[in-house]
């Protein structure tokens, strides 16, 4: 077992992990942060996307020991302490960017990574960036609408 410590959503945390413990497992099972979802566990679906040192990564495909000492951000850190949703979360709600909600934590974390580098993405750029996030409910249109709205842009999109 290896002792790891990291900052998760601004809080210093630590724990004892095996080498093979995935970051997704550490977050969910040891820290109880079950907002990070594991869909495919094969780095295809993107439900488990979190940020490590500011970069979006698939937490099912990085070891907890690889995140030792890192700044980690998960979906739990996005809303305000009083429960007020972040701009991106609120846009997903307003534009019905989720149905079952399983993919939503990864969608929101990927969106935050996109908007950090590209604050006003085109619709095509949004769709391209979300190639690694799979949703089986919405057909993506409302997710794209939500992201256009969250970036302060017209939500009308061409493809219907």
């Amino acid at each position: 077992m290896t002792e790891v410590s990291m900052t998760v959503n601004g809080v210093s945390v630590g724990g004892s992990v095996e080498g093979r413990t995935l970051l997704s497992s550490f977050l969910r099972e040891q820290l109880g942060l079950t907002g990070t979802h594991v869909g495919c566990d094969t780095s295809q679906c993107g439900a488990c996307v979190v940020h490590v040192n500011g970069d979006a990564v698939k937490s099912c495909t990085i070891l907890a020991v690889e995140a030792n000492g890192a700044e980690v951000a998960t979906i739990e850190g996005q809303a305000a302490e009083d429960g007020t949703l972040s701009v991106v979360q609120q846009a997903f709600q307003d534009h019905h960017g989720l149905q079952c909600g399983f993919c939503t934590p990864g969608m929101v974390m990927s969106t935050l990574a996109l908007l950090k580098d590209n604050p006003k993405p085109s619709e095509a750029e949004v769709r391209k960036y979300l190639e690694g996030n799979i949703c089986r409910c919405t057909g993506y249109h409302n997710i794209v609408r939500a992201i256009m709205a969250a970036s302060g842009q017209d939500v009308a999109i061409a493809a219907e």
Partner: protein
Amino acid sequence: MYEFEFETPATVADAVAALQGDEAQALGGGQTLLPTMKQRLASPSRLVSLSGIAEMSGVSADAGTVSIGGATTHGAVAAGAGAYPALADLAGHIGDPAVRNRGTIGGSLANNDPSADYPAAALASGATIVTNAREIAADDFFDGMFGTALNEGEIITRVNFPVPEAANYQKFLQPASRFALVGVFVARTSDGVRVAVTGASETGVHRWSEAEAALSANFSASALEGLAVDADGMISDLHGSGAYRAHLVAVLTKRAVMAAG
């Protein structure tokens, strides 16, 4: 996944030392190795992470060469290899953004997946693969599906790409895996044209010598008229037959030549 020891060396020398002994395996970004270990297709007793080795990370360019540390992520190459636009563009289309934030050029080349993108770039560019022990020309590096000239415990520390006069990579995406169903990299230099094909052959990445000869004489898509690729020895699976892949090789080569200009 079976349990293993985990090492995080800070220097190449320490990494080489940690890789001595049976069942030790270097870990780049883990985007292929970790899924492989989950499936228990690999079960190293020790993983040696290369991501903390500062001398193996980063992109630099000078005197017509782009030099990339072996532990540099695809995302960093996409952002930092502007001196070789075709290479930066290729890196920016590997996997998806989250995968590109972890996966590394050294990991991709060392794995030599027959459908990976970087092997085509290295082979077409005539890149030099630098390891802890030696320098290996790309022509001597790739050795069939998942095979390379690397010895046990040998680490790709750097890859040096001579920047061609013109180059382009055309990838026919396999949308589920995000690997190339077929990919063709064309590079034109003062010494001639090199064409490298990934995703197609059962022998892995390879050069298409007939196209190279035709394009070296006349660098235009019309020079490829009448050239066909033999379907024998092409990968055939549920995503496409060997004949389909052979057809794609010719189509993508023409597109790459047109895009390279």
